[in-house]
């Protein structure tokens, strides 16, 4: 067995999918976190065992620093970074797709001119990472990392290829549903979000501890992009739409910014 997880197995015996699925079913019966985020201590995802804090979070008012967010601009991101199919001399293998959507806050306000970052496996389900030993081919024409800025409407847009599913060592015969990792900033550091976008109808949803760590079914649906034929471009690429709602809706903090700032 190879590892795609980069670490020794946590226990002496690897659980079966049946056992993990039973754990998922048990966890699904527990009350979900009210904010829709997963519980950090989630037994079916084995790596949480030593990495989830045991003590309760300490409730604190955010500081002025935390009520502001890093600013990114055209100096940070070049347009080609949003087209992951053009990072090498040749075309990557796989199904070319367009992924677009809006980044908004809880009040529906667009998060403007803010950084969106993605990373993903190639069409074969292989990451360009030394820790990924999945015996699927690397694609010399695909790296799998992209960046973009949202526009005035909060809209981002990437061109990429559809990533493949891949095995990992959480338990025996564990497979991740195809997904694209997303990293997002809001207007406050407290809105920071890293998450994963999934594709509709994936048969692995019910079996995957990471997807199932979101125990509320409606919240799960918010991780799944919609196929959108209006995004699809003729003779070119299939289109998916995925809107992202960040935590909180913060007013602009008092002006402590450098007056020379952007």
């Amino acid at each position: 067995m190879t590892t795609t997880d980069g670490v020794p197995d946590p226990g002496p015996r690897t659980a079966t999918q049946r056992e993990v699925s039973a754990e998922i079913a048990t966890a699904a019966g527990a009350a979900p976190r009210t904010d829709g985020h997963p519980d950090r201590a989630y037994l079916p995802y084995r790596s949480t065992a030593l990495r989830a804090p045991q003590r309760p979070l300490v409730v604190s008012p955010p500081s002025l620093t935390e009520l502001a967010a890093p600013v990114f601009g055209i100096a940070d991101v070049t347009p080609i970074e949003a087209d992951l199919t053009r990072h090498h001399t040749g075309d990557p293998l796989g199904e070319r797709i367009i992924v677009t959507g809006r980044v908004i806050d809880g009040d529906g306000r667009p998060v403007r001119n803010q950084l969106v970052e993605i990373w993903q496996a190639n069409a074969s389900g292989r990451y360009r990472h030394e820790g990924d030993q999945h015996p699927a081919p690397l694609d010399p024409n695909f790296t799998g990392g992209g960046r973009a800025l949202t526009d005035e409407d909060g809209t981002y847009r990437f061109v990429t290829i559809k990533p493949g599913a891949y095995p990992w060592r959480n338990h025996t015969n564990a497979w991740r549903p195809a997904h694209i990792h997303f990293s997002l900033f809001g207007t406050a550091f407290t809105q920071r979000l890293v998450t994963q976008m999934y594709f509709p109808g994936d048969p692995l949803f019910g079996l995957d501890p990471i997807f199932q760590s979101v125990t509320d079914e409606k919240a799960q649906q918010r991780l799944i992009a919609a196929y959108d034929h209006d995004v699809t471009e003729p003779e070119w690429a299939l289109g998916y739409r995925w809107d992202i709602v960040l935590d909180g809706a913060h007013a602009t903090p008092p002006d402590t910014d450098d007056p020379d700032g952007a």
Partner: protein
Amino acid sequence: MLELTPSQTVGPFFAFGLPFSGGGDVVPVGTPGAITLHGTVRDGAGAAVPDALLEFWQAGPDGRVPARPGSLRRDGRTFTGFARVATDRAGDYRLRTLRPAAPSDAVQVRHAPHLAVTVFARGLLHHLFTRVYFPNHVQANADDPLLAALDEERRATLMAVPDGGVTGPGYRFDVRMQGPGETVFLDLSAHGLAQPPAETVETPETP
């Protein structure tokens, strides 16, 4: 209110997606007043975490929270206040920055100078927030609403420890994700979702 998009783990393979060249170089080598901040991220068994990603966000020495682009492609002059560093195989991270001052609006909560920190890692389904404070701000730390609410042992987990840097003052800040000496992690959502920051201010000190 719209329902938010749930968090998912950063996973083990973020290395080609998130870290960027110079991510820990908030200021260049040789910058007057530069400090190094470094430490080790450890899990509940005390083992180094080689696949964590830390972000640091801070005010500058003037107490202003920067609103300047350029973190991803640093120009060597602009203080953007943002760092992103991955841990290495030994679980270590390092950055070079300037000491923050407290944002200067006297009406606001009197937080002592600090760096805001997010911790991401494989096995962490939702990132963690914490803060780095500096021990020399004795009075400001005593007045800080978060530090004041913690006992000495927990408070110590948020305090950078001077340890003599190579190219300037150095500080150590270790992150213990779980177990003995577990770092204080923060729930910053208690301010209410739609409320302006003014709702979070504390009564100014009376003269």
